[in-house]
């Protein structure tokens, strides 16, 4: 099992070269500004900004499509359900089901916000090695315990995942092919889960000893890992202005809509 969110971190786009701390602040601001949007007119701007950022990142289109596959299932459920249960203005009837205008608008809003935020998230974590982004988060004030836990958990995720894969293969080779629910099958799967936990626990004792030998827990001299240039700062200011623009634009659009209704 391999998790390749940063498989294109080696590309050389301006977003790849942007200081990871500034990139984190800037793109997270855009993500939160997107979640603020409620006016339909702002959605077109959102799609344009998202597309421009993704194109600048030089990440392949296939990467975006692959990453969209899994979460789109949840989105599909909402797209199929909401237009029929939300709102009062019926625009069409399909058999016993009424298609409602408010539900359709809600689906449009949710779907576009969802895809846009997901795309910006891919740019944020796909244009630098994952560990660099975590270090940038640490430099921005993420507590040491959380950083250590995140780095260690990430380091051993693949290894433990491979352990599970091997154990499941061994179980299959020994004839375990549970296709229906049973108390016996659940017990075996619980032992499988328990064994993974025990193995990880035992491994953690060795990891801790190895970390102590390497000086873990002693004060370290802070190292300047990141160095921002004036171009990084200008990019940050520009992207923050975009984020603020979205919030201001949405407020203005909604005020205008309210005034028209009155």
């Amino acid at each position, binding site marked *: 099992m391999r998790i390749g969110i940063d498989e294109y971190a080696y590309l050389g786009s301006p977003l790849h070269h942007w200081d990871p701390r500034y990139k984190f602040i800037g793109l997270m601001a855009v993500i939160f500004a997107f*979640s603020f949007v409620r006016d339909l007119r702002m959605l077109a701007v959102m799609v344009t900004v998202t597309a421009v950022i993704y194109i600048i990142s030089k990440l392949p289109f296939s990467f975006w499509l692959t990453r969209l596959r899994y*979460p789109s299932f949840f989105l599909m459920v909402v797209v199929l359900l909401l237009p029929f249960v939300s709102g009062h203005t019926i625009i069409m009837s399909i058999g016993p089901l009424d298609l409602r205008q*408010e539900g359709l608008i*809600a689906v449009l809003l*949710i779907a576009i916000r969802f895809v846009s*935020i997901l795309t910006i998230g891919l740019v944020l974590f796909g244009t630098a090695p994952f560990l660099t982004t975590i270090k940038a988060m640490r430099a921005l004030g993420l507590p040491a315990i959380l950083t250590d836990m995140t780095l260690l*958990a990430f380091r051993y995720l693949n290894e433990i995942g491979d352990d599970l894969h091997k154990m499941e293969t061994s179980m299959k080779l020994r004839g375990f092919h549970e296709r229906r629910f049973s108390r016996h099958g659940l017990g075996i799967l619980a032992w499988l889960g328990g064994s993974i*936990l*025990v193995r990880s626990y035992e491994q953690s004792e060795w990891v*801790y000893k190895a970390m102590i030998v390497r000086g873990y827990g002693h004060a370290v001299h802070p190292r300047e890992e990141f160095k921002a240039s004036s171009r990084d700062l200008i990019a940050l200011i520009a992207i923050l202005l975009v984020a603020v623009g979205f919030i201001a634009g949405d407020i203005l659009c909604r005020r205008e809509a309210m005034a028209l209704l009155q």
Partner: protein
Amino acid sequence: MHIPDGFLPATVCAAGYVVAAPVTWYSLRRINQKENPRADIPKASLLTAAFFVVSWIHIPVPPTSVHLVLNGLLGAVLGYFAFPAILIGLFFQAVMFQHGGLTTLGVNALIMGLPALLSYYIFRLRNITDKRQRIMTGVFGFLAGFVSVGVSVGMFAVILLTSIPADLDVVTERAAIYTLALAHLPLMVIEGVFTALVTVFLWRVRPQLLDNT
């Protein structure tokens, strides 16, 4: 049971972070009060990764299969480390699998993490007597798994249905919450039984793993 990006308004997302921050702070403070807090970090980290991996085990429930939430088991094994562990697990899921979201990380951490801490307190009740430890571990393991998923489903349904930008009437909203709760009842039982079986297994094989509780 993770709310994706784009489903909740910014105010609810921000409120999620605002509430999750002090809960994280409180958990880290309790961890720092330990004699040697750093000693537990590798254990908690590897177990965080292990829990993440164990949640990939699919339980066959024809015609489909379900994967477990495991926040009750996390609370039972990790104690106060459960909340940061869930936060990290959800962060991994959002970043690596686009499951859940970055704006909804705080809300999702509360939906999964608060019941995990509740399970920690429930599972600790097994120590009220020294007798019949195996049965007590099983019973309180079941309750930890059952209750945590139940509370998570309740929080998920209420937050999602009351915050989603859709015009749902009260009757539809209530019906949806009840349907979601009823649909998850078998999962709550399976999760309870699975948690009981794993905690009894750990009690027999590696009781130190349950030392936190």
